[in-house]
């Protein structure tokens, strides 16, 4: 089985959210659901020293994240219907609409906030890594839309060989929890998982 995954380059992302909107447009998502979110993480302050000079340790950076099609997906483990599986050809974590009852257990379990319950469809919905486009030899629409080329997609082994093996940064959870198929080029001022010096700066934008 080939396992596909995403690469996110934190040194390039400007937080423009074109990836979010391209995904919403392709998947015709309602206002209250995003399959991909851009988290703005920031913190720090200004201090004045004895000589009156101001210094700052303020920081902010963006993390674009969707379903990471994990190797140990919490959503799949917890689903009471057995409705969530991994595609053998691509490693996509998919939700079978025939079996799903829309109970929301997957949404409650995922530490990346990837699955959502669509109130209209009454089903769990999530990023499918644009399976139709990938099957046609294209990139997922978020990757193709990014004007800064901050996203990449491919076989996870190739991505790791090309970009490294970092897969966690605040505000994401530790990669050891669900083994995400994600590679991150760490942004400037990247903070470690569990960092308490920063906060999510755009909680109302996260759907």
């Amino acid at each position, binding site marked *: 089985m080939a396992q596909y995954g995403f690469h996110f380059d934190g040194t390039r992302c400007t937080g423009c959210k074109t990836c979010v909107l391209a995904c919403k447009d392709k998947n015709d998502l309602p206002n209250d659901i995003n399959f991909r979110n851009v988290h703005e993480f920031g913190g720090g302050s200004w201090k004045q020293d004895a000589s009156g000079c101001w210094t700052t340790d303020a920081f902010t950076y963006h993390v674009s*994240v969707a379903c990471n099609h994990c190797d140990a997906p919490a959503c799949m483990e*917890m689903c009471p219907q*057995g409705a969530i599986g991994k595609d053998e050809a691509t490693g996509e974590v998919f939700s079978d609409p025939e079996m799903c009852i829309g*109970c929301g257990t997957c949404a*409650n379990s995922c*530490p990346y906030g990837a699955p959502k319950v669509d*109130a209209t469809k009454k089903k769990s919905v999530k990023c499918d890594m644009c399976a139709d486009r990938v099957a046609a030899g294209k990139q997922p629409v978020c990757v193709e839309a990014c004007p800064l080329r901050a996203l990449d997609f491919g076989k996870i082994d190739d991505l790791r060989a090309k970009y490294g093996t970092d897969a966690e940064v605040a505000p994401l959870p530790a990669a050891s929890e669900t083994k995400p198929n994600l590679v991150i080029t760490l942004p400037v001022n990247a903070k470690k998982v569990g960092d308490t010096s920063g906060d999510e700066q755009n909680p109302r934008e996260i759907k």
Partner: protein
Amino acid sequence: MTGFPTAFSEITLVLFTTLAPSGALAYVLANLPIAFGRATDEEREHLDRSSWLLLAVTMVGLVASATHLGNPSNALYVFTAVGKSPLSTEVFCAVVFLALAGVYWLYSFAERPRRRLQRAAVIATNAAALAFVAATAFAYNVGTVPTWSHPLVPISLFANALMGGPVLACLGFAAARFEPGRAPWGGRLLGLSAAALAANLAVYAVMAVQLAPVSNELASVPELVPNYAAFIAAFAVLAAAGLFVGFRGLRARGRSLVVRMACASALVLAGLFVMRFTFYMSHLTIGLGI
């Protein structure tokens, strides 16, 4: 940002986890005279005919839990994940318990029921009820949700059932024209409930301390469940009031006894509802979920 919207959106699950474990344990306790062969034919008949009340409490909880499903028409797939998903196992145990209880209840109407078969059936049903309570206690063990995978969570649910179950059982006995106050076990049942109240308070006090530092990058437990101490106080007042009404009601007879035990049960269950609500309020994942 509080966890109130989260808990409110899961209100049917709050109701389910309030009613079903206590209802199932009450069913077990109310059937103990039959399981141990201590009930006369007439007493057994009364107990059998009134068991619908305790089953109804459990059923209301189960039906409530089903209403939060987006699309329950495909719910039978739940049996494909028994043993893999704790929620699936919980549903399976609930179905087994209710199926056995339903069949037993129907058989109780037989003109000449076989006593041994009946006793074996009630023992099997009670075992299924206990398995259901255990499965519910562990159904929320989601590793990525630190507030739910805390080791005291299943203990709190057992303690909940041990508090609500005996009071409900007294209601069941009263409805079956037993008078719990005229037997020593009536006071003992409510005493068990009172002991469970003390255990609940100890468990919730420890959880309040241990969960206070838990947070992710979006929220902390004190933000999600503000005034946790006030919730615990409301729980204690409601439960204590229920037990007070129950103990005072032990001397009543007939319909008055049923009414008093129903009031006691309602107050105790209201207390449990408050704490189950805070449980759902406290939901947060290790990453980006609340």
